[in-house]
């Protein structure tokens, strides 16, 4: 390979022994917890703030700032790790939990110490049985070694950690949906404010962070904020794991500095497209991110600002590469079917809107659409944005608007000819 990944978090992922406690300890495991426990909690928060680390789950909110929203008192507070990884195209958290469960646990204990939380949960999506078993075993090992429980390493800090298995609902990746689920209810999101940092799990102050975010905390403590900032850009510091899938030669997870060009990610790291194929489009941040045309994709860098400027978003870092063998009507149909299925049903614009745009797109794919339907998808989608409790409605509307706008020719061809411009489409 012409280019090398920047393996900060994933440095030892190729070693099987890194999964177990003994192997993890061999490569500096829990040394940074020891370091953090000698610091003042506020100093840990300050270091994370100074690093500019931003949430790796999708929203990209600065982690240290989020932690700073917690009330300054001694009230019980919870740390929740969001491992519900459900954004289509994303598969990095699964790898992180299965290759390096102790890295996550160490990052969590450091974070818990910083925010003075005595209890944390790792909420893992129900389908990830292997991840659940591996993380549960690692937690047990950490207890036995004195990294969890009472008076951790003689510091006086107590912390308990547990795993919770989800049961198949995309919406539980939304932080307040996850909290509802952990509380034993339907995974429906809650109105914000109050934000979880003020009133979260069981109405107690709660911090929810993604797997990758919490794991990164370890390296910020190890190397310091300034060293962490050597990677990435001014506003998007650090490395990021990108899950690349679709039509590339070498799909997989790649850890690279934020700000890496999408072109390099596809053509250098992932080996480009299959022979004879041309790039048509890229979804750069999970299936809810607005699609980029090939031309836009070749100009954009993979950091929060550059993607926002290009009209899309970094999201969870799931890059779906689409070559010219795909029909965009077909792919929008697949995507909207998903969001319709996953709408939790509590807000009307989402519950009804996802169904409408899914059905209209589906009827176009069945050769029953009209030109007016193309505009209708856009009009309905525009009314779904910014009107609901959580972002699922927007997550359906954004791909819908971008697909019908940027690939309008394919939609028009379909309604006029009753068939795809590209190929025979499969029906699911």
């Amino acid at each position, binding site marked *: 390979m012409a280019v090398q990944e920047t393996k900060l978090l994933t440095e030892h992922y190729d070693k099987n022994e890194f999964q177990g406690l003994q192997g993890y300890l061999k490569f500096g495991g829990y040394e940074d917890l020891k370091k953090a426990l000698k610091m003042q909690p506020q100093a840990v928060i300050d270091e994370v703030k100074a690093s500019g680390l931003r949430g790796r789950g999708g929203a990209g909110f600065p982690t240290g700032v989020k932690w700073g929203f917690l009330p300054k008192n001694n009230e019980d507070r919870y740390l929740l790790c969001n491992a519900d990884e459900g954004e289509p195209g994303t598969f990095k958290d699964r790898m992180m939990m299965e290759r390096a469960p102790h890295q996550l646990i160490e990052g969590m204990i450091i974070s818990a110490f910083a925010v003075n939380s005595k209890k944390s949960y790792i909420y893992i999506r129900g389908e990830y049985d292997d991840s659940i078993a591996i993380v549960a075993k690692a937690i047990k090992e950490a207890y036995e070694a004195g990294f969890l429980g009472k008076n951790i390493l003689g510091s006086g800090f107590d912390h308990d950690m547990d795993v919770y298995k989800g049961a198949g609902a995309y919406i539980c990746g939304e932080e307040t949906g996850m909290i509802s689920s952990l509380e034993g209810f339907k995974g429906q999101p809650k109105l914000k404010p109050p934000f979880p940092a003020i009133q979260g799990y069981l109405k107690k102050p709660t911090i929810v962070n993604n797997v990758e975010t919490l794991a990164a905390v370890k390296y910020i403590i190890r190397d310091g904020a300034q060293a962490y900032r050597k990677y990435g850009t001014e506003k998007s510091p650090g490395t990021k794991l990108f899950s690349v899938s679709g039509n590339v030669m070498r799909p997989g997870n790649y850890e690279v500095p934020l700000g890496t060009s999408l072109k390099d990610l596809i053509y250098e790291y992932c080996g480009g497209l299959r022979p004879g194929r041309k790039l048509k489009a890229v979804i750069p941040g999970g299936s809810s991110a607005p699609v980029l045309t090939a031309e836009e994709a070749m100009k954009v860098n993979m950091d929060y600002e550059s993607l926002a400027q290009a009209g899309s978003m970094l999201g969870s870092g799931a890059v779906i590469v689409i070559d010219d063998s795909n029909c965009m009507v077909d792919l929008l149909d697949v995507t909207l079917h998903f969001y319709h299925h996953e709408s939790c049903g509590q807000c009307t614009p989402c519950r009804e809107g996802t169904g409408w745009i899914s059905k209209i797109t589906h009827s176009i794919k069945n050769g029953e659409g009209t030109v007016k339907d193309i505009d209708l998808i856009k009009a309905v989608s525009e009314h779904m944005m910014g009107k609901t409790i959580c972002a699922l409605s927007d997550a359906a509307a954004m791909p819908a608007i971008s697909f019908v706008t940027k690939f309008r020719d394919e939609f028009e061809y379909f309604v006029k000819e009753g068939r795809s411009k590209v190929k025979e489409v499969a029906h*699911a």
Partner: protein
Amino acid sequence: MSETAFELSKEGAEFVKKELSRYETKHSAIIPALYQVQKENGWVPPAAINYLAQLMELPESHINEVFMFYTMFNKVPTGKLHIQVCTNISCSMNGGRELANKLCKHFNVKPGEVSADGKVTVSKVECLGSCDTAPMMQVNDRYVENLDFDKALRALKEMGV
């Protein structure tokens, strides 16, 4: 089995009772309890909801609401092997739907239906977080990845169908 006759095994009931005190609130034990029913019974029959309500001393309506919300709880019986083929975007781009359709044809079932011999159910499901190994399927709790139809059949044969 009549409507009121569902019961967990002795170990299963003990597990549920332990879960009731594992979390800060007993409601959090509902999802683990439903998983226990499914583990023992293959699916969650209506009578199990009433049974859990009594065992856990929680409202039946609440348990039912949680049960209905989450897709991983089977609302109807499935075959011994529940073959769930991902048909979300990356898998669809790599033949996931064709794979699901071929498996349905091979086992002579419609999606979600149990085969006549009770051995399999083939379902089309949403993203399972294994997009770099598309197309893929989950058979009971096992991921089977980088598939084509022949490879899927070979894997299923090893699992007994």
